[in-house]
């Protein structure tokens, strides 16, 4: 139990750190974002009431006269109420609303493709690691190449080849917009068809890391005594591979899974851009390009929350998978 408490405590701190970072970034950096923002708002014809100004100053850390810590408290209060401010580029829509529209897409795309990449990579890695020193090892340089390819570059090449030249997949978008999003087969089929290329990119670009990690762990695990014992016990190779070798070798990969989500979200920001995918990455870029600071902060906060949440889940799960963690410290 205390393992779990500790973990939850840690995530509370991490969450607080993320919130504080979000609060601090605009205040630490030079320039006055509030002015930029308000100029932008005015330019677009928005009304700038003193309240609006105050709200933004609070959110972004402008030249507010109040002491920093009161600003900080108000900010935290706003965050807990889910009030992330108003998006400039989508004025007057609140940031939370803008983000909530994009969330499902990213969650599904990134989530699924990360899981696929991880499962595939781990399975392949286990396979390659199970027979180290065979021809399978020659897969490794290829995977390192894949792992070092910039996501967007790969994405562009893939679209060029698979979508433009061969015409197998649609080039952009999240689904056939004629359809109404919902739980009907037609829509889901279309979403899969449209999501295939982005997912393929993410899978291709991230599978190498999993494969290598798993392979190395597998090789290390194979020299453990318990593998030898299993062999001596007369277990079948399949049984050894599954319940002994892979089961132990996969642990670091599981631990790394949630962390890698952070990396993948990162990669997907750009991938979404390439594919005009309706996800959160697209919003983040839009926000940056439009100097929509509130949205920028909101998206960052959301991504952080998602990664933290995923980490928490994996950590809690990990406590179940690896009985030793619960005992440690």
């Amino acid at each position, binding site marked *: *139990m*205390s*393992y779990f408490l*500790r973990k939850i405590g840690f995530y509370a701190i991490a969450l607080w750190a993320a919130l504080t970072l979000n609060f601090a970034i605009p205040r630490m950096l030079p320039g006055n974002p509030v002015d930029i923002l308000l100029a932008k708002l005015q330019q677009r014809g928005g009304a700038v009431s003193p309240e609006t100004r105050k709200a933004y100053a609070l959110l972004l850390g402008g030249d507010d006269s109040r002491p920093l810590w009161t600003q900080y408290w108000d900010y935290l209060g706003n965050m807990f109420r889910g009030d992330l401010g108003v998006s400039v580029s989508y004025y007057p829509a609140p940031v939370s609303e803008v983000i909530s529209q994009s969330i499902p897409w990213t969650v599904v795309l990134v989530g699924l493709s990360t899981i696929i990449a991880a499962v595939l990579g781990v399975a392949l890695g286990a396979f390659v690691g199970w027979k180290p020193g065979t021809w399978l090892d020659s897969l490794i340089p290829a995977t390192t190449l894949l792992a070092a390819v910039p996501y967007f570059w790969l994405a562009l090449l893939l679209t060029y080849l698979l979508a433009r030249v061969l015409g197998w997949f649609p080039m952009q978008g999240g689904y056939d917009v004629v359809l109404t999003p919902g739980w009907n087969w037609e829509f889901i089929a279309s979403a899969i068809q449209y999501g295939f290329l982005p997912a393929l990119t993410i899978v291709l670009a991230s599978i190498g890391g999993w494969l290598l990690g798993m392979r190395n762990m597998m090789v290390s695990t194979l020299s453990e005594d318990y593998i030898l014992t299993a062999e001596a016990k007369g277990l079948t190779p399949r049984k050894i591979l599954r319940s002994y070798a892979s089961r132990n070798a996969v642990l670091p990969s599981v631990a790394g899974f949630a962390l890698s989500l952070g990396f993948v979200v990162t990669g997907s920001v750009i991938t979404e851009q390439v594919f005009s995918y309706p996800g959160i990455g697209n919003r983040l870029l839009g926000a940056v390009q439009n100097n929509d600071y509130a949205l920028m902060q909101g998206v960052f906060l959301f991504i952080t929350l998602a990664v933290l949440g995923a980490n928490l889940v994996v950590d809690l799960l990990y406590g179940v998978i690896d009985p030793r963690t619960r005992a440690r*410290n």
Partner: protein
Amino acid sequence: MTSVKITDLVKDYTLRSGLKRTRLRAVDHVSLELAPGRTVALVGESGSGKSTIAKILTRMERPTSGTVEVLLDDGTPVSNGHYRREVQMVFQDPFASLNPFHSIEHHIARPLKIHGRTKTQDETRKRVLEMLERVNLTPAEAIAPRRPHELSGGQRQRVAIARALAPGAQVLIADEPVSMLDVSIRLGVLNLLGRLQREDRLAVLYITHDLATARHFSDEIVVLYRGRVVERGPSDAVILDPHHDYTKLLALAAPDPERPGRVTSEAAVDRKAIDNSTCYDHFAGEWREAAAGTRTAVRAD
């Protein structure tokens, strides 16, 4: 000549499991004296607090309470600055106690330099070779530039001894110095230690769980059990005439080819039943309260 006086040493570790904290008393009111030219063996099972005492002696840990005094010939305590020069240690694992990255020379030259034993480069080098020769590592010139992995376990342990002696240490703590070595070379190292001890009239604390070597290489044996001293006395007396249940058990557990079949014939002893509240002192010939150290005799058996 330097002697060490340990009085009422207590060391508590705080163990944390989750949010709970528990205290573990690793050393419980231990008093000991190390005199020049004498070897005291500290025996006891795993986890009985032997290494903890060694760590406190070398100031790698602070005692929770109690004192460690290192006294010079004239009875004056050594200053903190010179403590490390007087008290040195040989570690258990010869493979781990030398830094694989550095040459043998580095290992011995460093303490010489730190403690100002040598001034010039040449002098240092000469001293290093001398030290190597003292621990029978010849030809010293060939050994000095080597790296630890180029030496066998026994040779490494000799280097470790040379390093410990380099600052001119008068008190040597040897924490299971041979338990990681191959059987066939253990005696060599122990004999070397014995010789140096005699030559330099060192005060040695020999930590081991091997009763046989404890008996052969020390003058006095102190038996530690769950942090407390449960028996002490001259080596032969402790081994041949153990009083405390735990010492008896230890003596029994040591293999003795003179009496084959002993293993099966004797019933297992329930260790939980052994208490550590009393201590038999062979010097005084009486039982004492273990946790109170040596000063207060409580009751006769």
